């Protein structure tokens, strides 16, 4: 393992509490900075949940799906575990003792693009949006139906869209997708994206400039069988724009079509 890239450590947005900087230090050690996707262990999932009973349920569900499950009862425990092994997907409860779920999401996002699903209570509406903006890809509310959850996780983890190779996608003047590294290239610059972000871009490219509705994305990318929460899509687009926008001088590459959805400027 080489030296810790200075850029990773100095980017920590958290407060200067010694505990937290130690934690991000640990994370950086394990993840080698930058894109961690190729390091993610296949078939390993992580659960960060302090309620023991719910933890058992989630763990059993994921084990039934063929995952080896790492269980952490707090964000601090999670970061210790993450330093050793990067899971394929993380389920994080919003409310944790000590460091909160949203902080853990931010921490993970500092150095990795693994899909993150937050587990929330119904009343945490504003917190859900904040978490989605911070980098979570989807959320499930308690009480959840296990079948729904596993269907969504399966969908989230499907790496590529069902019947398309990325080479058969229409080309855009500014945006290309690299299937091998599962990353996006905008104006020549490589950008790390989460699997969900990648697949959203795939869908937008496949539409060749036509509008893609939120519901279509929820169905094809997130795997919602029935109508889902459009905000999940909105927040992801918001994050994508943040990643893709190099300077305010260049126009946006994703356009919002009010009342219909989103489209790509080809």
């Amino acid at each position, binding site marked *: 393992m080489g030296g810790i890239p200075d850029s990773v450590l100095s980017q920590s947005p958290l407060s200067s509490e010694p505990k937290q900087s130690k934690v991000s230090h640990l994370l950086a050690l394990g993840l080698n900075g930058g894109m961690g996707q190729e390091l993610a262990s296949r078939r390993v999932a992580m659960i960060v949940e302090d309620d023991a009973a719910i933890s058992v349920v989630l763990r059993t569900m994921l084990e*039934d799906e063929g995952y080896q499950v790492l269980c952490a009862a707090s964000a601090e425990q999670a970061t210790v575990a993450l330093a050793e092994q990067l899971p394929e997907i993380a389920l994080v409860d919003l409310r944790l003792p000590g460091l909160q779920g949203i902080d853990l999401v931010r921490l993970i996002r500092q150095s990795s693009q693994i899909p993150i699903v937050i587990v929330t209570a119904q*009343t945490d509406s*504003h917190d859900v949006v904040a978490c989605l903006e911070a980098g979570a890809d989807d959320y499930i509310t*308690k009480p*959840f*139906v296990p079948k729904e959850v596993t269907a969504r996780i399966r969908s989230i983890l499907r790496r590529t869209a069902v019947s398309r190779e990325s080479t058969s996608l229409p080309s855009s003047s500014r945006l290309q997708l690299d299937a091998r590294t599962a990353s996006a290239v905008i104006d020549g610059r490589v950008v790390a994206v989460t699997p969900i972000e990648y697949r959203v871009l795939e869908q937008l490219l496949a539409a060749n400039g036509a509008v893609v509705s939120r519901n279509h994305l929820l169905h094809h990318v997130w795997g919602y069988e029935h109508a*889902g929460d459009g905000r999940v899509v909105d927040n992801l687009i918001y994050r994508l724009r943040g990643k893709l926008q190099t300077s305010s001088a260049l126009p946006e590459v994703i356009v919002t079509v009010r009342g219909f959805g989103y489209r790509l400027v080809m």
Partner: protein
Amino acid sequence: MPPDQLPVSLLESASPTGAMQRFRYSGDPYLAIAIPLRDALYVEVFPLVDLDTLLVRAAWLLLFLTLALAAFGAILGAQIAARVLHPLTALAVSARRIAMGDFGERMTQTGDPDLDPIAAAFNEMVQAVQAKIARERRFAANVSHELRSPVTAALGSAEILAGSRNQLDPRTREVADVLVDQVRRMSRALVDLLEISSTFGDDGAQSEVIDVRAVCQDVLQMRGLDSRLLVGPSCFALSDARRLERILTNLVDNALLHAGGVTAIRLEPNAQCVLVHVDDQGPGIPDEVAAHVFEPFTRGPHSAATPGSGLGLAIASEQARVIGAAVNFEPLPGGGSRFTVSLPASDLPVETVEE
């Protein structure tokens, strides 16, 4: 006037002191005074017409003035009474508004020493009632919140158990099935309760062009109903797909629970709005329930034993309010009920990715 027209009684009663009498001659009143002289009677006659007319006029004037004064007095009295009663009328109006559920009402102090204590006491009472209701709502919300985690764990465990039911011996399987069913039911009731206890509207309704037909199809599919029950053309509305799905699901569940099933979901688009009718052939809704059917925990007369949470229609109605739609019902001519959701139509064509 000839002497023979003088009243006889006058002439007769003209005693040594004299007499006077009022009499009529040719329709006019006169006064005659008779003074006996030594061997004759001196009678002087005065016409009273003018005096009489004066008296009659005076009488009329007096009558008129009395009436006018009485009327004036009545008006003045009414004014004063109204001014005194106005705060009390205002009080009655405020009380009525509060009974309808508007707790923002307060009475203003007018400076009147008699009425201000009433206003103050009234405001105090409203405050107390409001606080009590808020406490009870918080209690319901807290209880629901407390139940959330245990129910989540129980539901998850039940579903996992349900997946392995074939591995159980028949007796255990039967019990396990009961457990799973009841946990599912409890969970649905809790979700409903949580939904209705939370403050609506803070989530913000989405507004996008949605394919209403597709949403209806999803709802039928989710409940395992025949998709041929959906009748009507393809139509689009400007609304929130997730909430619309919730509303329609609740209406369908209501029909399944209380009316023996759904006979049809009909789509009726017109220029301004899209109407979605959920029809059933059930016993209909009795009048005494009809006014309250969208309120929480209203149940029909025979539904005490049915597994619904009693909140489905209340949630449907509330979610409709959030998205600016309306839910109504009407009896169907051949029996049964029709619940209708009306959505604002979207006349813009939808561009979507081809499947």
